[in-house]
């Protein structure tokens, strides 16, 4: 059986086992979480909006990450909502912005599927020119509440 063959080969070949040296780590301390989130979101091609009008679909973020502009979403039954539509607006509670992925990982809860989404879909596969709107959303707004 391939499973036991592979595991056997791993066990046989491993020579010395390396211990973990780091049980925790810190990345960056961020003073103004909201400002940094907005800055990161814009870098990722997203926008802050006042109204959800004009967007095809509205999603609710559990929390977001200031350091990279990503919103954490995990409550949709149909997973195609994240990539099928041309425009998405995400509702985000301002008080639910954390500094880095370290804090984020403490909040992650996954029932069956979850996603960190940062800005609209994009590609730079043709001559390194950034194009917004590859396969997923061409427009991604975040409404802070």
């Amino acid at each position: 059986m391939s499973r036991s063959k592979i595991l056997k080969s791993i066990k046989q070949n491993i020579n010395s086992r390396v211990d973990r040296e780091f049980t925790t780590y810190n990345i960056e301390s961020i003073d103004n979480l909201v400002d940094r989130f907005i800055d990161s979101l814009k870098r990722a091609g997203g926008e802050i909006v006042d109204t959800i009008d004009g967007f095809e679909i509205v999603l609710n973020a559990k929390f977001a990450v200031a350091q990279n502009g990503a919103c954490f979403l995990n409550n949709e039954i149909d997973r195609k909502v994240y990539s099928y539509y041309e425009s998405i607006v995400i509702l985000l509670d301002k008080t639910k912005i954390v500094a880095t992925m370290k804090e984020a990982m403490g909040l992650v809860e996954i029932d069956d599927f979850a996603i960190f989404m940062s800005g609209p879909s994009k590609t730079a596969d043709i001559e390194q020119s950034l194009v917004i709107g590859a396969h997923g959303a061409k427009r991604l707004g975040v409404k802070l509440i």
Partner: protein
Amino acid sequence: MRVFNDDKWLNESLNFVRHKRDLASKKLDNWEYLREVASNIKAHTITHLDSYLEEFEAKALANGIKVHWAVDAKEHNKIVESILKKHNAKKIVKSKSMLTEECELNPYLENRGYEVIDTDLGERIVQLAKQRPSHIVLPAIHLKKEQVATIFNEQNSDPTYLTNIARVRLREHFESCDAAITGVNFAVASEGAFVVCTNEGNADLGTSLANVHIAVMGIEKIIPNMQDLGVFLTLLARSATGQDITTYSSIFKKPSRGKEIHLIIVDNGRSQMLGDEKFEGALKCIRCGACMNTCPVFRRVGGHEYNYVIPGPIGSNLGSSRDIKEYGKLAFASTLCGSCTAVCPVKINLHEQLVAYRGVYKSQVKESKDRYYKLTAKILTKPRVYRSLIKLAKYMPHWLYRGVWGKGRVAPKLAKKSFKDYYESL
């Protein structure tokens, strides 16, 4: 025919990506410390792969993911085919996976009548051009927009226009697909979940529309827990493209109701790399491509000049470990400047491995070139002989280049004066 000077733009675009990586890393207070953490997590994980794989499998099975194991590429392809057969799937949308390139899955399936659509824009371009990716993150970086327009049968070569053309055409394939194949960036042992990162959203679109999702991973993709995932998601996109994080970082834990997720765990020679401390570090690789973007050799010749499926410094090492006779020569295609090692987010000692593989190659492979090396050594150790031969070099007829070395190359123009003569005339 290749004229190296014409490839300035490739050098420049890769250097641009490298520069973006530098800016992104400097924005963080302690990037170097994070690399240290990531390196240790990976070194620990690859030397405990057996227990982490078992933990991952147990959790994934409990989550309802169907787990398969493949010893080699052949078994991997067979498993994929058997899943497709079971679901009577004919049309497959695929997002990026270097493992499927390594296993040559596309030709395997196409020869058996399946329609395989690569959906990452860069991969779609090279698929239509009947080429292979020249870079693991930027598959079509060797092509100019005019060439892409020709490949798409379009007159307009504006990247936005072409990207939208691809979006519209590929959307039809997404809507009518039977199965979706993705790679895996990270498999989290503590959760039995796996993570797929894309910027385009193609993995999400394919897997949400198809009834069956086949994810394929090498055994080294395992990481212990979610905190570790935080470290790697912080490093991956910054190292790869200079973004803070990929647009979509999707965590698959359970299949949607009525759908199936199959995960294939592939060895294909990886477990054989364990145990040799000089070389096993290559298994820490997270496939960000930073070593390629910074490599002075890669930046000038491009990925197609490497005969292993993964190009650049990491590919030269992985290829050498796979088959020293076939790929060991790649270890010599390096200036050993160490820039790859300096940018690697998991601190693989890439250039030191290249040196070590040169030794392995020389001890295991006899080359016809060896006698030229001996002749060269004789000349170089006798300054007078060397100088008189150099003076003769300018009379060397160009047809001499057309031998083995000159294939696919243009003869350089030799200076009229040797450097020594020039220097003395100053």
